[in-house]
């Protein structure tokens, strides 16, 4: 069968291409690991300078997680703030507390405020502490747990897109595509052969990325691993078909790179890494055209909220639809190379 011959050839080429192997199997793991260290760090203890505060409050601040330094007067604290040694200065002025924040990092600002509120709140005594439980996730869900599913989807998408685009382009520029099309092979068989040849590596890659993120990096996982693999595979197939399709509009490998800011980067913004709720509703609708939006939504739902296949039918079908449409467009685009 010709499809099988094509698939076998792609695999033979691929296993001899060590760089591409590394790109598709090692690079995602490396970047994912880096992301893990960037986003998984525990919130740093803020350095707070205090002046004129009763020792009981100082103790509460410390137990709430602040590094407290006591200053004699406000000026000395200000000095520390300017030198970058402190994140905030807390003082009791006329009976009510006031905080002066260093202010350049919003995350630190929030951290200080939370700690101060916690410390002050407890002194009030009258307030009833609400009992907090979580519908999804857990108390110490880190940023990495929240971004992780999106990253897993993104890496499956990005590296397959690059690889598929470049190899199909190379097939065209070296003349082998034309030679291929001088045989009785059908255009559909060429596309199907590419899909199955790369599809196998794509499947392996999807499994590797998801498995590594969940079992090695300990990414929060509340759903079925099989559903995660299915979504990841569909996302990679979309990347595969989109990559080969776009490569017919490129004539050099650099032009494939030029597609990244147009095709890949916008998808990152719409993939759920950033909240879109305050965005113009019309602009929000752009996400409907982005495969990564559906993939990331499904991965997040599955991994964090423990959703099953039935909760993700739309996402799965849309991704499947993208792949089918792109594959058919590929078959049509091959007409540029051979009229029949």
């Amino acid at each position, binding site marked *: 069968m*010709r499809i099988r011959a094509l698939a076998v050839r792609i695999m033979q080429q691929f296993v001899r291409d060590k760089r591409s192997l590394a790109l598709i199997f090692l690079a995602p793991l490396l970047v994912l690991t880096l992301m893990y260290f960037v986003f998984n760090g525990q919130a740093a203890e803020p350095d707070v300078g205090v002046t004129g505060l009763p020792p009981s409050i100082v103790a509460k601040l410390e137990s709430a997680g602040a590094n407290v330094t006591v200053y004699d007067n406000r000026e000395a604290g200000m000095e520390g703030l300017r030198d970058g040694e402190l994140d905030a200065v807390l003082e009791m002025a006329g009976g009510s507390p006031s905080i002066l924040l260093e202010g350049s990092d919003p995350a630190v600002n929030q951290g200080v405020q939370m700690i101060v509120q916690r410390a002050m709140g407890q002194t009030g005594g009258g307030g009833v502490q609400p009992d907090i439980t979580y519908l999804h996730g857990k108390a110490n869900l880190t940023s990495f747990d929240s971004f992780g599913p999106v990253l897993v989807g993104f890496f499956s998408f990005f590296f397959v897109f690059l690889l598929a685009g470049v190899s199909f382009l190379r097939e065209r520029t070296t003349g082998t595509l034309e030679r291929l099309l001088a*045989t009785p092979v059908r255009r559909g068989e060429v596309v199907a052969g590419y899909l199955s040849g790369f599809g196998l590596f794509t499947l392996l890659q999807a499994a590797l990325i998801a498995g590594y993120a969940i079992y090695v990096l300990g990414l929060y996982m509340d759903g079925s691993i099989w559903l995660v693999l299915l979504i990841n595979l569909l996302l990679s197939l979309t990347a595969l078909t989109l990559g080969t399709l776009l490569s017919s509009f490129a004539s050099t490998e650099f032009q494939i790179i030029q597609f990244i800011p147009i095709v890949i980067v916008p998808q990152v913004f719409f993939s759920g890494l950033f909240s879109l709720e305050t965005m113009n509703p019309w602009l929000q609708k752009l996400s409907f055209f982005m495969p990564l939006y559906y993939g990331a939504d499904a991965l997040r739902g599955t991994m964090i909220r423990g959703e099953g296949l039935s909760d993700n039918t739309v996402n799965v079908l849309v991704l499947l639809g993208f792949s089918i449409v792109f594959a058919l467009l590929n078959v049509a685009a091959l007409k540029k190379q051979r*009229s*029949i």
Partner: protein
Amino acid sequence: MATSVKVSGASETVLAIDSVTRAFGSRTILNGISLDVRKGELLGLLGPSGSGKTTLIKLITGIDRADRGDIRLFGERMPKLAMLNRIGYMAQSDALYNELSAKQNLQFFGKLYDLNGARLESRIQAAMSMVDLLNHLDKPVAAYSGGMKRRLSLAIALLHEPELLILDEPTVGIDPVLRLAIWQELLAMRDKGTTIILTTHVMDEADRCDRIGLIREGRLTAVDTPEALKRMSGKATIEEAFIALGGGAGQ
């Protein structure tokens, strides 16, 4: 001189090209080409580079489509997918998978022509011995020299024993001794009934063809046996005949 014995017999037409025109943008590359090729004939297309030989070859193989005119292969109007099984094609630039071994290349293309198992294996042996590459079967193509790649491309074209061989500059970069050997193989295949169409810009090769088509600036200025062309132009060599005939009619 390879004066053919077989051509003169009333044999069927394998390829019929009728007033074919092909333009890219506003540039007309092929202009009103008409040509018939009979079974068992070795036809050489001779012309300077850029004259349109490769463009014509691509129309015959159905990779490209003519703007006007009609190309029939084995009686079927081209382009037609089923006809591609009956053609062996060697492109002007070697289209090989460099990462793979010669054998893997041959197996891949063989399977696209529906060859399998023992038959594929024996055809690989036969084709590679024809181009004298049997000892290099398992080498990666990346380690091949230019001439070896050319020969491997030829072996791939021969693999499925096509009725019609279409070779675009098959002997470029191949040393004289081996070129002679390859020509002997081609002539032997022709004698067994394979139709061969090849392009060349080497004049002494043209002399070995049954008939030569002279192409100049997209026009077929003359098609005849080497002897007839020389006689027609009153020249002693094909080279001179080409200049006399092509130059006159090309303007």
